[in-house]
């Protein structure tokens, strides 16, 4: 036991350890404060938090779970990008290879189940925030950021659904994107779209309506795959990351985890 202690002391006192963790083991109040302030990741938190806000029975840990699952999705998604090519020649076979050949082959599983879990976690987070009335002033704006993040989560999941390019994927996206066809004024079959005319020529048709913009074609095809891939891997995660930064920052600025006034 004392050997272990010695080893620990030696490690903590070494130059390497000290260069990384400035504070050492946070065993005094001063060090506890410094540990949070001195760390990029931990300084997302305030130094002190309400006791009621730390309780799992109050927060259900769902916000943190959502964020953690986002990180899981990022890491597993990055690994999947090594194997996956977003073209209709390769997409499905790459997924097959990933399933049958790649060592450690649970990354796709984890990515998919993580996505489902993240959707549920975000819903439950919203549910908890509503049930505790935490959207009330001064947190109105952060609730709004949260709603956009919820939409982005659904869009992330939706765009990712197409990428395996199997029957499940294209038909789910076909069903989902058919809705865009009915956008009022912007889809071929939407109300009022027929009224937008230049003489006798309809300006809104299957080749330029909202659905076409989403799919990049009249049906779910190669350009859709590429579009959804770019949205899924670059555009939406960047947007979500940016909004998450605002979301977390505002949690701090609006007084930390909510509690009775």
């Amino acid at each position: 036991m004392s050997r272990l202690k010695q080893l620990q002391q030696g490690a903590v006192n070494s130059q390497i350890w000290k260069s990384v963790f400035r504070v050492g083991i946070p065993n005094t109040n001063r060090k506890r404060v410094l540990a949070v302030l001195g760390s990029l990741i931990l300084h997302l938190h305030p130094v002190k938090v309400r006791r009621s806000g730390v309780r799992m029975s109050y927060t259900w840990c769902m916000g943190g779970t959502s964020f953690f699952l986002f990180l899981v999705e990022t890491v597993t998604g990055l690994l999947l990008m090594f194997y996956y090519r977003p073209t209709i020649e390769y997409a499905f076979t790459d997924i097959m290879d990933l399933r049958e050949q790649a060592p450690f082959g649970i990354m796709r599983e984890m990515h998919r189940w993580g996505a489902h879990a993240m959707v549920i976690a975000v819903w439950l987070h919203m549910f908890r925030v509503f049930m505790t009335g935490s959207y009330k002033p001064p947190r109105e704006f952060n609730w709004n950021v949260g709603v956009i993040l919820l939409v982005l989560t659904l869009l992330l999941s939706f765009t990712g659904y197409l990428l395996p390019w199997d029957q499940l994927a294209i038909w789910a996206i076909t069903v989902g994107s058919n809705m865009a066809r009915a956008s009022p004024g912007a889809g071929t079959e939407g109300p009022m779209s027929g009224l937008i005319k230049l003489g006798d020529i309809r300006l809104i048709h299957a080749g330029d309506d909202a659905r076409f913009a989403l799919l990049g074609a009249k049906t779910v095809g190669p350009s859709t795959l590429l579009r959804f891939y770019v949205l899924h891997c670059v555009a939406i995660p960047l947007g979500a990351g940016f909004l998450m930064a605002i979301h977390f920052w505002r949690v701090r600025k609006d007084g930390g985890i909510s509690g009775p006034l």
Partner: protein
Amino acid sequence: MTFIKDFVDVLSGSSISFLLLTSLFSFLIFFNLLDGRLRSKGGSVFIGFGLLFLISGIFIRPLLYLAIAYLVLMFLLANLGPRVWETRTGLIILVAGGGAFGLSMLDPQFYLIAAKPDNVPIVAMIFLLGFFTWVALRKAYLNDRQLLAGGIPWEKTESDEKLFTCPDLVYTEMLCMIVLTIVMIVWSMALRAPLEEAANPTSSPNPAKAPWYFLGLQEMLVYFDPWLAGVLLPTLIIVGLMAIPYIDTNPRGNGYYSFRERKWELGIFLYGFLVLWSFLIITGTFLRGPNWNFFGPYEYWDPNKLVPLVNIDLSELIWVKALGVALPKIWLIREMFGILFCLAYLGLPPLLAVGPFRRFYQKMGPPRYYVGTFLFLIMMALPIKMVLRWLFNLKYIVHIQEIFFNV
């Protein structure tokens, strides 16, 4: 056993019985949260509802089953009273739910749908939603008790005390991450992610379903056209969610669980989130089979199931059936009644402002009141259309095919 399966199948045979049951049940829960007793004015309304169902059930079998299910739930809840919110009762409900689910898994048809890999998270979601709803309402109930007795909510007793983030919060977070990582790894190893055969644009599966979290919207397509169910209503859901903090000016219930202090907000939100959003997802996932027909949980998904198409437009109902004349050629006259009905429905807010909602109008002020009631009416349009469809086979209230404007 067969009787119970038949019971459940017939009960879910039309989603209206489930919708009505869940709605009535949530009212019962609220009644319970307000310490309501069956031997009171409110209680007799609930009993009256049950008797009404029972009588109409003599003619329509699903309604009879609905009445039985409703009466059983009502008397169970009335007998339990405040004990529903005790930990022991919660555990019993959880075990009973899990047990019923486990037993149902023995049924091959049920197993086929519930154990489909992509449906597993939704099964988990049902239990999680049930669990967390109970947790939140339990805490709200306990806090309400305290507040009624002149005390403070329990969050308040702890909120002034501050803890160091490191170690108290950091360790909780770390433990959560470890547990989640283990769950994710075990889940990923135990269940393979679904992969069907390669995409084939020429052969569409039956039923073709959207990703599960959009199945509530797909289920709405049964009742509304795509421009409403797929575009306008989802947009208004997002707008409505974002508008919540600006419409709700009630300063109480900020930062702690409570029901009494915000029963309207909670009632509307829980109805929207649990009944209209989650229940429709569950319907779309588990109860909609080939051709998007309705199937009970134990029913075989028969692709040749015959469902009579007897839906009828309001214009046809009035002009042809009631007045006995042909449909007028000009759509404005043909759809006159439907348009008037919709305008009257959306014109309700000013009327309600001087009538039953006067209290809200005075408290919220005109802009908040009008936006809030408009969003509320749009939300309630879904259950109204569902009831009209299932009970009267009403297809469209307004049907202007000329400009794709169907409501």
